[in-house]
């Protein structure tokens, strides 16, 4: 425990100094890493803790980003209330559809989240006045020193660190334990009085809240909202990150997100056919490292 806390403090300290020698490009890469780390950890609350594989999790990342974008670009809100509204809208939507989704299990749960994602995608891509249609929204403004790449970096670092700390607390709380208990055995959990549906619904809403935060931060970092973020293919990204890092440890998806962003940055720099290389890597890793990167090295170590 002390080691974990010390490690986390050290990591934040290193990250706080990191932008000093870096160019804007690499600062942006670090921001993306942090956003995606939060996104992946939130997703893993469902997959790793809850055993719920959502095919449509990008819905909440996209809703967070669109909430920020629409409030800022279309309705002229200040950046602070717009960022605060993003996770609220995402988790409110999750509260409604989650009511229906958590009644299903396995593949049917996944398919229903997929259906809702496609609904959201269809609505946003057809709403030119509100959401910019297939262009998305551009020109989000962050005023003052916060709007510089370094400003965005420190804001993201603070928010992501806070959110990850909260998520870690949630994961090890009685709620997190109950969530894991129902994943390993639903009937036993019901028998000892765990309200399985309620736990799953709460996990769904909480995960969506933090996905909304991460979507809003991505909107800030790129000053845009892209409809691709809501596309069904976007929902594979958190799955890739969680599986890459391993789903059974809190830190797994964080590592998965960093590896994913580094790979994407490096390969995009080398070739325009980066998605092909990514596809080969994903298949290779899944077939060869079924325990994720963290699990792979732990097993070799032991």
């Amino acid at each position, binding site marked *: 425990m002390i080691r974990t806390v010390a490690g986390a403090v050290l990591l934040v300290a290193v990250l706080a100094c990191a932008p000093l020698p870096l160019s804007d490009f690499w600062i942006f890469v670090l921001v993306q890493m942090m956003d995606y780390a939060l996104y992946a950890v939130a997703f893993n609350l469902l997959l790793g803790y809850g055993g719920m*594989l959502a095919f449509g999790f990008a819905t909440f990342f996209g809703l967070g980003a669109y909430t920020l974008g629409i409030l800022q670009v279309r309705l002229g809100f200040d950046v602070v209330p717009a960022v605060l509204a993003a996770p609220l809208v995402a988790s409110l939507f999750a509260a409604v559809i989650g009511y229906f989704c958590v009644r*299903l299990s396995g*593949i049917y749960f*996944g398919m229903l989240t997929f259906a809702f994602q496609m*609904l959201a995608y269809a609505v946003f891509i057809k709403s030119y006045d509100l959401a910019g249609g297939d262009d998305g929204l551009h020109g989000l403004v962050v005023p003052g020193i916060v709007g510089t790449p370094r400003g965005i970096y420190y804001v993201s670092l603070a928010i992501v660190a806070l959110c990850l700390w909260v998520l870690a607390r949630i994961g090890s709380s009685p709620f997190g334990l109950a969530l894991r208990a129902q994943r390993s055995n639903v009937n036993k959990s019901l028998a000892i009085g765990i309200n399985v549906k309620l736990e799953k619904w709460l996990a769904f809403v909480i995960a969506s809240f933090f996905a909304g935060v991460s979507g809003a931060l991505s909107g800030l970092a790129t000053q845009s909202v892209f409809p691709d973020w809501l596309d*069904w293919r976007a929902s594979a990204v958190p799955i890739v990150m969680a599986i890459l890092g391993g789903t059974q440890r809190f830190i797994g998806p964080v590592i998965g997100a960093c590896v994913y962003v580094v790979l994407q940055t490096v390969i995009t720099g080398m070739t325009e*056919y980066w998605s092909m290389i990514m596809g080969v890597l*994903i298949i290779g890793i899944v077939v060869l490292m079924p325990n994720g990167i963290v699990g792979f090295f732990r097993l070799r170590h032991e």
Partner: protein
Amino acid sequence: MDALFAALPWLTNPTVIIRQVMAGLANGMLLFLVASGLSLIFGLSRVINFGHGALFMIGAYLAYSVVGTNSPDLVTFIAMLFAATIGLFVVGVAFEMAILRRIYNSPQAFQLLVTFGLVLIAGDAVRLIWGPAEKSIPLPPIIDDVIQLFGVTFPLYRALLIAIGAAVCLALWWLLYRTHWGVLVRAATADREMLRALGVNVRRIYTVIFGVGAALAGLAGALMAPIVSIGPGLHADVLTEAFVVVAIGGLGSFPGALVGALLVGQANAFGILSFPQMSIVVPFVLMAVVLILRPRGLMGHIE
């Protein structure tokens, strides 16, 4: 009632209705070809193939390779259909044997990622091989015609699509329900361990079914090729609609794939008449409603 007619003027126009029913049938039959493969593969192996649209897309590109940009004769056109079907059968068998069979016992998320890897690879592979520009292929002049039916004029190709879809559907039904091989497939779907214990080569059934599913997607891609523009993004809409179809019909159900495809075809055809702006949400609303009220789908079995 008058308000309804005012909002939906096509309700009083039989010509429009007949034309949309036919368009919906043609669309539904193509969807059936894609969705039946998806459903067969899922029923047998429990793998949801996110790469199914990619297989469809490769079929369309293969069709382009055979036909090119000049107007083909009928023989070339038929050769193109066979080339896409057989070509995708080979691709499907190779993918199953090289990769998919290693992960049948892995968690669902792993299977999803492997088929998603196929999506990523296929999108770039077609750009690498055929270039990023959109392609289109012409119909043979003899098919590029119109016919009269119920006093309404249709493209001949639309009627042909319906006929080919129906023929493939019948052939599949015969294979699955009237041959020894079909018995084995259905038995493996119900209980693969038992079938293996009885000495049947279950692995080969998995391989062949994935090949057949891929071949059906390839055939659908080739059939669709003359009426769409063929580009690296072609797979996305097909995949999402095929998902809608299998969810509505029931995951793993062959008759469900037919019912679902016909429903979605009609929903598309009349959705675009009724709410031209928002017609693309119609299939997804249907999918969500069916999953909420009846998760196993209209024709699926309780698990």
